[in-house]
């Protein structure tokens, strides 16, 4: 397993947010984290990133507790894609992606031509190399998100942790980012991502972990876990999961919220 939680209690020093989470992500696999607002998805992600220490249990990267890796060792094994990045400084896309290479350098060394080439290759892989010299703030939200994924690729880490990577995007860009995540999985990456939209889990996830009220509500293969009953309980609204015909040949399942409270 690339990334795993075993009986993990997570939260802050003075406040437990969730208890007893078990999950595991292996190479070539996408695991999706679902939960309502305030369920602690982001806190769990930050714990799995090694930013917050586990309160009990273990958060493991390649079998070793996250806290036991040095910052640089961890950075070359586990890459992070945030919802958005907060800076008013005008980095170009290429410069932003090149920061992913700092995992491979010491504090006093400087990026070279190889780092630049690796950053550019990551942009090419996500199909946005033509934007390499555009300022990060002047491209679309979807392109920004793809650049953040490219930065994660530039670290060459085999495991990707994404915190609601689609939540600031419009419909079309969401689809584009999800496609790219699926493509990374097909190339062998281990991906754990959180989202507000269960359709995204249906679309690309192999397995799903649902968290609610400070604990795991359900976990398992997407087809088994993402159903009307679980989603209704998870979000406190009646949700139907319906089959629709799709242009891709095979019918797909989608979530449809219906009015009223769950029965």
């Amino acid at each position, binding site marked *: 397993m690339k990334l795993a939680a075993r009986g993990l209690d997570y939260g802050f020093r003075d406040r437990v947010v969730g208890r007893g989470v078990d999950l595991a992500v292996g190479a070539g696999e996408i695991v999706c984290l679902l939960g309502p607002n305030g369920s602690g998805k982001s806190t769990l992600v930050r714990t799995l990133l090694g*930013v917050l220490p586990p309160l009990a249990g273990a958060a493991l990267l390649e079998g070793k507790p996250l806290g036991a890796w040095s910052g640089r060792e961890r950075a070359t094994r586990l890459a*992070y894609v945030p919802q958005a990045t907060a800076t008013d*400084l005008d980095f170009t896309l290429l410069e932003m992606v090149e920061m992913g290479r700092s*995992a491979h350098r010491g504090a006093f060394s400087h990026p070279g*031509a190889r780092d630049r080439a690796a950053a550019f290759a990551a942009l090419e892989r996500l199909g946005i190399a033509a934007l390499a010299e555009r300022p990060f703030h002047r491209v679309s939200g979807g392109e920004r998100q793809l650049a953040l994924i490219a930065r994660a690729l530039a670290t060459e880490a085999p495991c990707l942790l994404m915190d609601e990577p689609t939540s600031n995007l419009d419909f079309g860009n969401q689809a584009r980012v999800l496609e790219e995540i699926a493509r990374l999985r097909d190339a062998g990456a281990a991906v754990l991502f959180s989202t507000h939209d269960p359709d995204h889990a249906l679309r690309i996830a192999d397995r799903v972990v649902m968290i609610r009220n400070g604990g795991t509500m359900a976990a398992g293969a997407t087809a088994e876990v993402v159903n009307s009953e679980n989603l209704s309980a998870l979000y406190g609204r009646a949700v139907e999961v319906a089959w629709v015909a799709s242009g891709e040949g095979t019918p797909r399942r989608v979530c449809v919220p219906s009015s009223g409270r769950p029965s």
Partner: protein
Amino acid sequence: MARMPPSPRPRFALWMAASGAALAALAAWSLTVGRYPVGAADVFRALAAALTQAGGIGDNAQAVILDVRAPRVAAALVVGAALSGAGAAFQALFRNPLVSPDILGVSSGCALGAGAAVLLALPLAGVQAFAFAGGLAAVGLVVAIAARVGERDPLLTLILAGVVVGSLFGAGIALVKFVADPYNQLPAITFWLLGSFSGVSPADLGVALVPLALGIVPLWLLRSRVDLLALSEDEAASLGANVRGLRAAVIVFGTLATAAAVAIAGTIGWVGLLVPHAARMLAGAPFARVFPLSLVLGAGFMVAVDTACRSAFAVEIPPGVATAFVGAPVFIALLAATRRAP
């Protein structure tokens, strides 16, 4: 298929070379400017004579160049460079191009220290030492407050603590002015608050160079790392950065450089805000380019401003006043240009 964009290095090297050459020319020209006429050729001869211990250009001219103008130009060079370099570092730390190096209260701390030293009738070296200590004390207080209360949003807490401490020390300065003797001490304090390069001796400069170098050199060594602070804390940590250590380093080294600069020449605003902004427009956002270019541009800007201040009018104008008169409109223009660009 998109092609890899050309490396920014040659263009950056060109900017550095051009601004370095302009800086050298500016500094040399500044030595010729003043009430006692000395030609450019004589300036070179005087400098060469000082280096080789050979015969010079006559006692008076030699003294004007080496004892009066050269220390002053040198002070303007290092103060401009230090304030601009520190400004670039603080702008990277706070992820915001509108931040100045005194955001953590270093200037008001320095000013209070200097004011207190004037009240105590200390000599200039004492004023500088008190100014430096006051600046460090103010920033130390800011950091201590932020460490106590700012677990959730450390950067915002730092800024707010800086505002509070800055205004507290400002009240202290007002008190010092209130109790100062209005005929001798008050003018000295006001003079210092507005900044000045007159009366800087080579010895003062030598002493201040130590903390200044202790600030600037580590920032230069860390120049490729500082950009990670522009990201969120989680992102920077995920890329292998020791965020707290790096932040502490930028605060400590930026403060050392700023406090040393303020101790030499008083509180001169705008330079540390304006110059890194200009450097960024020329060289892009990465700190590894903004920082060295800010040092050179800041040195040049400060020399140009001080030369104008001491020669444009019959009476010398304080450089802090001039930087504000130049800085405010230029900054508004820069801001408008930045916002208007597609």
